[in-house]
């Protein structure tokens, strides 16, 4: 019985100062191989200075069907934005 290589999600920092960003996924037997494969699959043209690999099964994702409860409550809270507050023009930059 052969087992298939698990799926890994690949995150790459394209240069120092920027965050790691999701680049895609790939299959590998273990974390070390996932890193090596990620180098070849996603950074053949100097796209990165650092790679994170995370086995896909370890990611918990929100369900888009619950986007209503999840994200809509933020929509009616305009007072969280600076433009909600009326200030006279004389106050130039605030």
């Amino acid at each position, binding site marked *: 019985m*052969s*087992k*298939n290589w698990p799926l890994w999600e690949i995150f790459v920092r394209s240069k120092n100062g920027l965050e790691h960003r999701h680049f*895609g996924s790939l299959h590998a037997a273990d974390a070390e*191989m996932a890193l090596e494969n990620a180098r*070849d*699959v996603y950074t053949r043209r100097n796209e990165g200075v650092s790679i994170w690999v995370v086995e896909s099964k370890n990611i918990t*994702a929100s369900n888009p069907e619950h986007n209503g409860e999840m994200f809509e409550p933020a929509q009616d809270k305009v007072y969280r934005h600076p433009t909600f507050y009326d200030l006279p023009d004389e106050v130039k930059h605030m």
Partner: protein
Amino acid sequence: MSEKEIKNLEAIFEARIARDEKIEPKDWMPEKYRQTHIRQMSQHAHSEIIGMLPEGNWITRAPSLRRKAALLAKVQDEAGHGLYLYSACETLGISRDELYEQLHSGKAKYSSIFNYPTITWADMGAIGWLVDGAAIINQVPLCNTSFGPYARAMVRVCKEESFHQRQGYEIMLTLCRGTEEQKAMAQDALNRWWWPSLMMLGPTDAESIHTEQSMKWKLKRKSNDELRQQFIDQTVPQADILGLTIPDPDLKWNEETGHYDFGEIDWDEFWQVVKGHGPCNKERLGARVDAWNNGKWVRDAAMAYAEKKEANKLKQAI
């Protein structure tokens, strides 16, 4: 879910696409959208993987180190493109194993162009120039397709692909500026790859059964015939620069339409190749299946080693 509820969801879904919103893997989608995307994306991935074979044939025989390094890099890109596309396809809930199984059993198709043989070095030039040229025309509109993972994969693919076409054209240019024999070799390659390249852009609009639905889902932005015309219009002047003759006696500039008119395409040949009767169908699929089967012990050993290391780590922790 009742039929009415599904209809309602479908209407919301179509409206999202019409507004140019992207669809992500966990979003609700009609079953047909999922199936069509699995079919097209996997076909695309398979084409990248099988597409390595005709060129792999020439890596060891490239005429210089410069050419060899470039060809190797191009073939490696194709492996990469296949992998981007397979993993984008897997987000739709199909496993890599199922995708391979569909390719190996012949259930899934790949681009018919890869069933033609590469008999001279000039074929590396013609493939880069014409086949990658046609592929780019096909692929650029897909960077804006509605399914997020596919669109993102295509952005990466398109960025990398333009070197492929340029290296091919440079091979042709070098041959055309070389000896009589070298130029004849380039002409011969153009003669053999021209018509298959035109066929690669797919059946005529009248015969293309998926076009209408694919347009709606932005899986397609232009029809096959429009893409083909675009390819011809851009390629003819490039052949002129090389000093080569396109093997079509009916090809001529049409002042009125602002496009080139061209001769009849042999669609019987196209369908023969699609159905598995091209010059290399058996050889290509055979090479792919062998590579997969012969690599099995390596994949198993890597998995066994990973499991052993994991078990040792657990033991040490106790």
